[in-house]
């Protein structure tokens, strides 16, 4: 029954959200520029934005029609308090609204001075809007919570234990058993149950956000350095809180080397190693995801680059480009799974290294 309530809650939330913003899904008309800038196009697709931009049509009179889904902007400043409005009010950075102006995707406070609009230097604006990334993270959160709770409830009723598993249990159970038997148990030994919830959460959250990011028009959540930094920092603290005295003894007093080497080389190297391991986790996930998106976008943009040279070159090159893009797309689906697995596996390895100890190199 709880799952049905959750499902209806999901349906109501989605319906309410769509109803609230559907009035603002409209065509924005403005004068577009003729020159194609591939770097800008690619960067716009990778970076966070205050609206979902699906496509742009160019009408016969040269004007551009943007099909976008504007998202709410929520700003807070000590001087002006909490303010929220739809991002369509900014008209893609051309107008200011209600004392705020968006320049290059950053929102500044403005004030009227002698009839001219100037930047208000005294007001520091904190931008806590619902951007593309935030909305997509909430979506994957809802999907994950509904999926896992429905599967768990089925197990509580005995389905899948006394009878054959049904529905989503068939998909979720092998993955969870894989993470438990290949990632948690080999690296964490007897203490694996304590860390298994965190490892499973990290794995599924990264996986769902990776897969959603591959849908055209969606947000590039895992290819955002802020997202991976937060995940890396959380893993860093989990590793830090599972260390024991053997771990720190090995760092400050590395066994089996001469005293000079121990103090001059091993101490800085080991101390730095505590930080470089989560840093590598962060950069690995970020770089893999953003590189994949850039490659796919580059192949598609190549069509337009060739097309701007001559129409025939554009049309002729497009089958090749689409073929390459599909090939890279399939690799990116594989990379989505692999990167989620690698992040989880390495976190488990580092946690295991943190509380192992007491082998035969005792001093």
């Amino acid at each position, binding site marked *: 029954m709880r799952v049905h309530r959750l499902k209806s809650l999901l349906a109501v939330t989605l319906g309410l959200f769509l109803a609230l913003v559907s009035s603002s899904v409209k065509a924005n008309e403005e004068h577009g520029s003729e020159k194609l800038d591939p770097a800008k196009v690619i960067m716009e697709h990778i970076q966070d934005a205050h609206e979902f931009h699906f496509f742009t049509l160019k009408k016969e009179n040269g004007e551009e029609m943007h099909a976008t889904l504007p998202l709410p902007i929520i700003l807070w400043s000590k001087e002006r308090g909490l303010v929220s409005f739809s991002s369509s009010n900014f008209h893609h950075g051309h107008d200011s609204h209600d004392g705020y102006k968006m320049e290059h995707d950053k929102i500044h406070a403005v004030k009227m001075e002698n009839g001219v609009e100037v930047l208000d230097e005294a007001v520091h604006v904190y931008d806590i809007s619902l951007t593309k990334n935030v909305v997509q993270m909430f979506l994957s959160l809802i999907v994950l919570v509904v999926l896992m709770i429905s599967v768990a409830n089925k197990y509580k009723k005995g389905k899948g234990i006394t009878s054959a598993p049904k529905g989503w249990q068939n998909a979720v159970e092998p993955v969870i058993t894989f993470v438990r038997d290949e990632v948690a148990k080999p690296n964490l030994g007897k203490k694996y149950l304590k860390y298994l919830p965190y490892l499973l959460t990290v794995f599924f959250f990264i996986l769902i956000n990776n897969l959603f990011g591959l849908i055209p028009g969606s947000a590039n959540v895992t290819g955002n350095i802020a997202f991976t930094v937060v995940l890396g920092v959380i893993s860093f603290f989990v590793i830090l809180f599972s260390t024991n005295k053997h771990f720190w003894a090995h760092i400050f007093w590395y066994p089996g080397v001469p005293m000079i080497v121990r103090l001059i080389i091993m101490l800085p190297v080991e101390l730095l190693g505590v930080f470089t391991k989560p840093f*590598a986790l962060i*950069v*690995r996930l*970020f*770089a*893999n995801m*953003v*590189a994949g998106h850039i490659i796919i976008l580059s192949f598609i943009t190549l069509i337009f680059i060739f097309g701007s040279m001559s129409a025939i070159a554009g049309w002729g090159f497009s089958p090749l480009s689409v073929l390459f893009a599909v090939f890279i797309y399939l690799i990116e689906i594989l990379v989505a799974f*692999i*990167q989620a*697995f*690698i992040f989880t*596996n390495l976190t488990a390895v580092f946690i295991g290294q943190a509380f192992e100890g007491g082998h035969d190199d005792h001093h």
Partner: protein
Amino acid sequence: MTIMLEVQTGFSHMGGAIGAGLAAIGAGIGIGQIGKGAVEAIARQPEASNDIRANMILTAAFVEGVALFAVIAGLLAVLK
């Protein structure tokens, strides 16, 4: 003065692109060696091919991560 700035920007762009290219060479060599070892191991013992394939993919992801560090560094050189 603007010419000096353009030359400096040109150098940084070239450096970024060459760095990314070298990273691609490094990744190619590294993953090629992983593949070579994996395929030879499968040839010696075909029934272990599942384990070997899993390890190969895992190690390839590590090497690719390092190559992508260099790509990010190249991107930073171009963009800054």
